[in-house]
């Protein structure tokens, strides 16, 4: 990919960036405790709302809204987007998931601030440039959104929520997610290691 010097320079730049940004960061929480916390949040959604968590649905609603602004006829004619526009009596962004996702932002920010883990950096492996990483992140996001639309949910909606409800389709989705990720991991290793 590049000469040894360039690689070492990149590695040093990445390391320094991290070190500067997270000089006083606290260690991550025990995964089992974090998992229990997450599980209790999910349970509270079941008990209070009778539904679980999600994320991709908010993206779908957002896209439906934007398209309805730019090309209303096209949006109305598109069956997939129309599901998120309903009969037009409520604003597409007045959706449970949209507000939930805003909460995710706030909650993560809170946790990050408390743990001194907030810094403007680009997560990447030592061998890639920032530009490449950002491109891959964008591509990954687009890919995931496509997959989530097909699967009727993403890791939060299908794996987490559907998994705990023992939903057969969700378990199939969850296994496919892990399967697909492990299958492709070797091919994109250059991005992370």
């Amino acid at each position, binding site marked *: 990919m590049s000469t040894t010097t360039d690689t070492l320079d990149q590695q040093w730049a990445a390391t320094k960036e991290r070190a500067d*940004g997270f000089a006083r960061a606290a260690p991550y929480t025990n*995964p089992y405790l974090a998992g229990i916390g*997450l*599980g*209790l*949040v999910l349970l509270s*959604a079941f008990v*209070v709302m*009778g539904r679980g*968590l999600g994320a*991709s649905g908010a*993206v779908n609603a957002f*896209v439906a809204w934007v398209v309805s602004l730019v090309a209303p006829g096209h949006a109305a004619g598109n*069956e*997939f987007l129309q599901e998120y526009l309903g009969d037009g009596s409520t604003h597409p962004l007045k959706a449970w*998931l*949209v507000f*939930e996702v*805003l*909460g*995710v932002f706030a*909650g*993560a920010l*809170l*946790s990050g601030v408390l*743990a001194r883990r907030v810094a403007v*950096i*680009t*997560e*990447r492996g030592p061998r890639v440039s920032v530009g490449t990483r*950002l491109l891959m*992140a964008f*591509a*990954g*996001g*687009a890919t995931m*959104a496509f*997959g*989530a*639309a*097909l*699967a*009727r949910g*993403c890791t*939060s909606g299908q*794996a987490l929520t559907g*998994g*705990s409800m023992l*939903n*057969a*389709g*969700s378990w*199939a989705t969850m*296994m*496919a997610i892990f*399967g*697909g*990720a492990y*299958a492709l991991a070797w091919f994109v290793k250059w991005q*992370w290691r």
Partner: protein
Amino acid sequence: MNAPFFKYGMFGDETSLVIAFAIGIGFGFFLERAGFGSARKLVSQFYLNDLAVFKVMFTAIVTAMLGVTYLGWLGVLDVSLVYLTPTYLWPQIAGGLILGFGFVIGGYCPGTSVASMATGRVDGLAFALGLPAGTFVFAELFPWLKRFFLTGDFGLRTLPDVLGLSHGLVVFLVVLMALGGFYGASVLEGIFGTGDAPDDARQ
């Protein structure tokens, strides 16, 4: 107690949006606590260095599952009123695979990308910007995808249904599977070493 509260009409749509925000805060909080705002931490799952994704996810699943089971048994929660997505097996498997691909390419999932954006990650933002692009492509291709999208329609199916086992037995088996998986995870981490995976944000 009549739960789910919303499905028993205890509050309206407007309030439910406020609740959505509150629940979201909890969701985002624990995602970040676990370090899932960091792509490097997340993808370490798939290089077997750090299986936190598996640990957190299955702990959460088991916690919520046991909660639903016991609250349902106590009559506190009406489980049949909790929303279940219908099973469309083939597009869900295909979508799941694609989700998996996107996960290792992008380094996040939709929820964790929001968490990472909140803690300043530029790549998290890039990932989040990619999401609507992917959805838009799907929507545009929908007329051709629709047929496949609706295949494998098995309706509302649960694992106890499909496996022909009692609900309690499936719960027990899932707990066993999770505990076995956690043990296996620590073995794998021992073998593959957590060297490249961050225990905290500084690494």
